[in-house]
């Protein structure tokens, strides 16, 4: 898993996948795509690096990822309550579709990476 060829390829590929993921999230409501798909692509970019360079180095990012999760849910509910604050029902859309897309993108991104980091803890310590 640690041969030089793979490392150079990941170093080359990583920024392109990252940019493609961000594009899918931000332009989600105008072109095919959206929060979920973009979040998964972003997670794949980071996952590529984590797999190639070994997951032990990345275990220290876990609190930050959990923080993104919690902030994501709080923002989602705040947007919902902003619908009530504007006098109409819960979750009324005040032009917030791109914002919701970004929130869901970040959530799915941090969720997938957390899943991988915690499931990979059980790997046999070979590399």
């Amino acid at each position, binding site marked *: 898993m640690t041969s030089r060829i793979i490392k150079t390829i990941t170093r080359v590929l990583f920024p392109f996948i990252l940019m493609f993921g961000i594009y899918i999230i931000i332009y989600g409501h105008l072109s095919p795509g959206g929060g979920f798909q973009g979040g998964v692509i972003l997670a794949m970019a980071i996952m590529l690096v984590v797999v190639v360079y070994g997951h032990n180095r990345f275990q220290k990012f876990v609190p930050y990822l959990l923080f993104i999760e919690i902030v994501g849910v709080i923002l989602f509910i705040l947007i919902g309550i902003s619908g009530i604050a504007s006098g109409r029902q819960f979750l009324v859309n005040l032009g917030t579709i791109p914002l919701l*897309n970004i929130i869901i993108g970040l959530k799915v991104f941090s969720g997938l990476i957390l899943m991988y980091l915690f499931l990979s803890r059980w790997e046999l310590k070979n590399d």
Partner: protein
Amino acid sequence: MKGEIVKKFVVASVLSLLGIIIITSTMLTYSTNLTSEISEYCLENLSLTGAINVVCAILLDFRAYDTLGEVLIIFVTISGVVLLAGRKK
């Protein structure tokens, strides 16, 4: 080993019987035009949401409550995985 094959054959035949019953009694075919009223309503009010991608508009505006429930499911599953995998061995 012989009993194993017989058991698998029985299960396969029972399941194919279930499949035949469901497929023959529903006789589903592709629809030739957009019939569902919800999609027609969403197409009419699409301009209010400001999105062109109707799927995104439905997901985040017409049925945002589903997405709220689903965001919660992701949140619960992630903290469940963190909790379970984080327990001391």
